[in-house]
């Protein structure tokens, strides 16, 4: 064969693989509002930056007449590329080829790119669109999943791992995304569950649609399995690209620096917070009045919305924000919000991202459901994560910092590096109402007019304790600051903390309460 002919032959071979499961299958995929595996990768990476590997890998099935079948690339695309110039490794399951089912070769392609990502210390992005294990390949499929889960765990905390659910992801397959750092879902397209509607119906007699059981919205709002929710694949890809700009390539690096920007001036910080501690406001307005360009990239927006987490930039550097949200459930801590915040704190710590905590919460959510759901062990996760974190940790107390919640929200006692408080801060063992009822119980009960006495005692307690100065007098707060100084002081604190280095006792690993 002449060189020219062999080049033409190569092109023909590649084109055949690129056709995946064929035109008819691609049309079906498009009819569901879905792009193909390669289109998805190309939509995420920088133009012209993608290189695909293992195109000619063949499947390993021999039973059930599989030997005669050709499966293009064995139903998965792997490769490397860049996002805004940052290198990434990617894989995308191709639903048009045998439903994206996972056989031995398919799994080996995925684990190959996973090994590559870990070795090169760059982020891994996995696009899931698969009917699950390839039944014809039996226990080899299970082995494949196991090899993937093992690598997810090995890479955890070393390189960022991102999962994108763009189709079904059922049974054991869901555990790979669950082991990764961030999960992206798209309305009407993503489906995740352990046991599908058909089995649930046959065993339980419960009739539920795939969407209602494990659709995008369910995982974004109810289960907390998903971190980012989008209405289209296009929106999802933009979210992924934005996330990549906020995180480092690996755990030995810092996230990329951007040119510093001032917040947009229209956000006047002192006008956001009502002076009555019982009235709500949106804590995200405070975050946006502090960050560069007033930008805030929120994570898990719909799940446990009583706590807000996400990334922003301060003087061009990535910072993680953890903030109570008075607008939802009064900003209380509960099982879900503790779980959500704790994981994020650990993420920031693993990837060298300083944490700013904005505090305004009345305590833990009362209720039998909370106690029985294990609010003790879930709540303990926040204490554990903050205590364990060695990245710069800065707290600003906006209004209420009561009781156990005060300790949990990155207090001095958990080794916060800086604790600032606004003059509106109330640092106390509980709110004035509850405290007065206990401390002055006798006086209130014995008074001629108990209600008038109660109000008088609440006011007395408020005057004496509902302020930042008691805690400041003990050194638990470093500085009481004016609200409009917040950004300036935070920038200074971050600058001072740049080379923070704290020794910790040697151990194999800790035992966080999960």
């Amino acid at each position, binding site marked *: 064969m002449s060189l020219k002919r062999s080049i033409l032959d190569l092109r023909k071979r590649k084109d055949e693989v690129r056709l995946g499961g064929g035109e008819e299958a691609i049309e079906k995929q498009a009819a569901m509002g879905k792009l193909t595996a390669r289109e998805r990768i190309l939509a995420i990476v920088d133009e012209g930056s993608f290189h695909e590997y293992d195109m000619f890998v063949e499947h390993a099935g021999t039973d059930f007449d599989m030997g005669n079948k050709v499966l293009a690339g064995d139903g998965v695309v792997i490769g490397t590329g860049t996002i805004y110039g940052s290198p990434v490794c990617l894989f995308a399951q191709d639903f048009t080829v045998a439903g994206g089912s996972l056989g031995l070769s398919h799994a080996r392609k995925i684990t190959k790119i996973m090994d590559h990502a870990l070795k090169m210390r760059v982020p891994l992005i996995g696009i899931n669109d698969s009917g699950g294990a390839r039944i014809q390949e039996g226990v080899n499929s299970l082995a494949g999943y196991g090899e993937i889960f093992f690598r997810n765990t090995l890479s955890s905390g070393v390189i960022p791992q991102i999962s994108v659910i763009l189709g079904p992801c059922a049974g054991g397959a869901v555990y790979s995304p669950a082991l990764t750092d961030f999960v992206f879902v798209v309305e009407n397209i993503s489906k995740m569950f352990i046991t599908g509607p058909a089995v649930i119906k046959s065993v339980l007699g419960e009739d539920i649609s795939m969407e209602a059981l494990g659709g995008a919205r369910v995982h974004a709002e109810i289960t907390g399995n998903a971190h980012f929710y989008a209405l289209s694949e296009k929106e999802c890809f933009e979210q992924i690209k934005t996330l990549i700009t906020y995180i480092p390539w690996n755990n030995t690096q810092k996230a990329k620096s951007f040119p510093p920007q001032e917040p947009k001036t229209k956000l006047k910080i002192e006008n956001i917070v009502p002076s009555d501690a019982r009235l709500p406001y949106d804590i995200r307005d405070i975050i946006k009045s502090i960050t560069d360009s007033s930008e805030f990239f929120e994570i898990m927006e719909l799940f446990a919305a009583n706590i807000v987490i996400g990334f922003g930039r301060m003087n061009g550097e990535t910072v993680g924000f953890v903030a109570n949200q008075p607008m939802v459930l009064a900003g209380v801590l509960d099982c879900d919000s503790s779980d959500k915040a704790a994981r994020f704190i650990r993420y920031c710590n693993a990837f060298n991202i300083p944490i700013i905590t904005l505090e305004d919460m009345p305590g833990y959510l009362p209720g039998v459901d909370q106690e029985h759901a294990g609010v003790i062990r879930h709540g303990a996760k926040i204490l554990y994560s903050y205590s364990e974190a060695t990245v710069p940790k800065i707290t600003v107390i906006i209004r209420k910092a009561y009781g156990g919640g005060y300790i949990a929200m990155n207090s001095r006692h958990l080794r916060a590096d800086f604790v600032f408080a606004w003059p509106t801060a109330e640092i106390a063992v509980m*709110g004035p109402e509850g405290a007065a009822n206990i401390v002055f119980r006798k006086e209130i009960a014995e008074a001629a007019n108990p209600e008038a006495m109660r109000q008088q005692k609440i006011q007395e307690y408020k005057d004496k304790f509902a302020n930042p100065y008691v805690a400041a007098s003990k050194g638990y707060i470093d500085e009481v600051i004016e609200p409009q100084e917040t950004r300036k002081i935070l920038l200074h604190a971050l600058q001072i903390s740049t080379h923070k280095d704290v020794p910790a006792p040697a151990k194999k690993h800790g035992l966080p309460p999960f």
Partner: protein
Amino acid sequence: MADQEKQYIIVHSAKYETTYTKKYLNRKVWEEPNFNLIKSYIPGTIIDVLVKEGQVLNGGESIIVLEAMKMYNDVQMPFKGKILKIHIEKGQKIPKNFVMIEIEPVV
């Protein structure tokens, strides 16, 4: 927030204006457990009912065989008691927390 009814959370006697989440609104209200109701702890199929109404049995005696998750589960009397009412029959498929049998303690 302005156009919907105001919602409140009470923590330590203080009432805070806020909004509820879907999960909070759907939370399960706790009920005192009634030990005289033998409920299914797992969904499944009734393979056999081993008792009759009016019968008195000791704690630990088998009363129902419930097939669930490919296993025959032996459902036993929790304490010495009398069978008051049977709500199931052989072959019936039942969901979780279904009241299968009502009993009353016998001293």
